[in-house]
């Protein structure tokens, strides 16, 4: 009786066993499927962005024989810097183009011809002349930046598949072909993209201004939010009595973390700009608005890090007569530092990608100059992406994707830094 009962139990267990293992396999498969889906989305996103954007890292240049004669440049006295600065550089470029394609006649065709090169080419010539005045009245072989439409056409022509002509008509295509056949077109690494500020002309537009703006904004955010966040966390964890007030504060910090970021932007407009009369578009104001947004993240992660310090370490310090401040400064904070830094970097990475609140405080303005400090008008990377994605020019599409790549690069670097710092500073006990 007893043994048969036992047999039955075992049989029942065995019978269920297969079912249990199947359920377990399914359970695991759900997880794998979720991860796979996530990875697939990520791959799709990256291929899309990189596929659209990688061409922005190269730029077409057109070779021209430019005669820098003083007459066409309208320079009578080469020692006068005002004349050098105000000279008619586009005149010599146009003349060079006419000489390269002598059979082009008629106003309309000539205008089309002039649009082969960027109308910012004059600045490049000016820079050359300023650097080396002896080239005045000589013939120079110069590589000039191609216009964005021409650049897009050249790049798409060098790829397989459908050629994107856009606004480049057959006549202009013929000129480009003739230039290519004579090896007078070259694609080079697009340094302009990394050294220039924003521009209406895609071929002259760069992200340097946005990167500097982002750096200044992040700097302000970091130096404000980290000390304030850590101080608040230390007080709340170590000193604050546990009562209704601290409960209320805690609930509100958690609430603050969930407030939509555009609300912080409105708050910034109302307080920093409206009440304190600060200027719009400043990294200083942007940094302060993002500080409000980042603080809850830093406070919450710092509190968690402080809580994770084992009580035995606190007791050890107090037990040999350390004051509370000594206990915190010598033992709790060093042990909590990796966690707090991780929280701060993740908070900053979040702030780096933030757009909405910065739109509210005017960092969406079109700013060509590269900011030199926190009090210079600036824009930031995500806002620059937003601005370019809204532009009608075809060449801004690839630049938008390229800017997204740069932004993602910064985010990856910051997250890697967080991981590295945590590994580096982590101490075992």
């Amino acid at each position, binding site marked *: 009786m007893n043994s048969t009962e036992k047999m039955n139990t075992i049989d029942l267990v065995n019978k269920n066993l297969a079912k249990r293992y199947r359920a377990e396999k399914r359970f695991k498969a759900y997880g794998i499927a979720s991860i796979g889906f996530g990875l697939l989305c990520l791959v799709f996103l990256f291929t899309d962005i990189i596929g659209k954007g990688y061409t922005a890292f190269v730029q077409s240049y057109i070779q021209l024989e430019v005669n820098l004669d003083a007459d066409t440049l309208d320079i009578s006295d080469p020692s006068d810097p005002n004349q050098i600065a105000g000279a008619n550089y586009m005149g010599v470029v146009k003349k060079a183009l006419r000489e390269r394609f002598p059979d082009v006649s008629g106003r309309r065709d000539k205008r089309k011809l002039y649009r082969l090169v960027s109308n910012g080419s004059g600045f490049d010539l000016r820079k050359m002349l300023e650097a080396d005045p002896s080239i005045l009245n000589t013939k120079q072989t110069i590589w000039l930046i191609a216009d964005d439409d021409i650049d897009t056409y050249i790049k798409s022509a060098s790829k397989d598949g459908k050629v994107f002509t856009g606004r480049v008509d057959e006549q202009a295509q013929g000129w480009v072909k003739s230039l290519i056949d004579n090896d007078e077109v070259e694609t080079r690494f697009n340094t302009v993209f990394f050294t220039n500020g924003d521009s209406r002309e895609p071929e002259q537009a760069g992200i340097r201004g946005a990167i500097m703006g982002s750096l200044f904004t992040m700097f302000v955010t970091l130096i404000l939010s980290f000390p304030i966040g850590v101080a608040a966390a230390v007080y709340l964890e170590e000193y604050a009595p546990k009562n209704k007030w601290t409960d209320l504060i805690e609930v509100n910090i958690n609430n603050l973390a969930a407030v939509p970021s555009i609300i912080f932007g409105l708050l910034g407009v109302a307080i920093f700009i409206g009440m304190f009369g600060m200027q719009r578009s400043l990294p200083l104001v942007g940094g302060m608005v993002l500080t409000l947004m980042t603080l809850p993240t830093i406070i919450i992660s710092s509190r968690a890090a402080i809580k994770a310090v084992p009580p035995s370490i606190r*007791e050890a310090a107090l*037990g*040999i007569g350390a004051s509370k401040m000594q206990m915190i400064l*010598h033992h709790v904070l060093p042990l909590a530092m990796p966690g707090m830094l991780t929280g701060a970097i993740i908070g900053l990475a979040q702030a780096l990608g933030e757009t909405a609140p910065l739109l509210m405080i005017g960092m969406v303005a079109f700013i060509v100059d590269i900011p030199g400090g926190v009090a210079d008008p600036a824009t930031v990377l995500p806002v620059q992406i937003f601005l370019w994605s809204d532009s009608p020019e075809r060449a801004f599409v690839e630049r938008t994707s390229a800017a997204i790549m740069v932004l993602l690069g910064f985010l990856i670097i910051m997250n890697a830094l967080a991981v590295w710092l945590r590994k580096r500073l982590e*101490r075992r006990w």
Partner: protein
Amino acid sequence: MEATASVDNAAQAEESKLKTMKEEVIAQPSVDDVQGTVGTPFVENAKMSMRDVNVYYAEKQAIFNVGLDIGKNEVVAMIGPSGCGKSTFLRCLNRMNDTIDICKVEGSLTLEGQDIYDPKLDVVPLRARVGMVFQKPNPFPKSIYDNVAYGPRIHGLTSRKAELDEIVETSLRKASLWDEVKDRLQAPGTGLSGGQQQRLCIARTIAVSPEVILMDEPCSALDPIATAKIEELIAELSENFTIAIVTHSMQQAARVSNRTAYFHLGKLIEVNDTEKVFTNPEHELTEAYITGRFG
């Protein structure tokens, strides 16, 4: 009316019958009618003396009217079943209970006649005079040297490197750890074995030259060999320091202490010379505990 009364009576009779049965089985003497402490809780040359100490955690009372003296250069062991309040009492002696918000201490606790719960008294120098060694070895995640030097540094005992080196060396020697670590003073303290870590904690405590050392089950996380070393050390340290030790091991209490205090459910039942407690206890509760009938 009558009917209910008879039912009540029957219930009462049943209850008392159950109670006697229970007592017969466990034969556990009741602590409710313990009045005061038997034996010799008070001594002539007291270093610390505690009178009528009551400790509360919020509403719950953990210690009831405890009075005890700790004599100069004496080792007093505190034993008793889990939750009897011996650790709580020990932690009152250098105000470590201050860190627990809900803990309230009443009564008179003095160190050489000075009230240690005087609101004007600063706990920082108090803890320099009354050091503590904890149950789990808790070295700082710093080097061995810095662990020992931490106390002298924060109290500003010396500003010269040579003097600090000397303090570190003598403390490690007193904790009989010097020979094992002298070649690797800059190695992390957390890399030592459990027993070495606990001796390091003892060295850290004696580096600030306290007058009293409180030990809260210092060997409970250690193996027998490490335990034997610590016990040896306690015997040596008692020449210079006054020691109060809480322990779960009765053998340990018997080996290291001069007097033994037996706590039970927050009351101090008996204090006597260690030999007397373990051979001829005065109180039936003590006897029940040391013979292993509960605990």
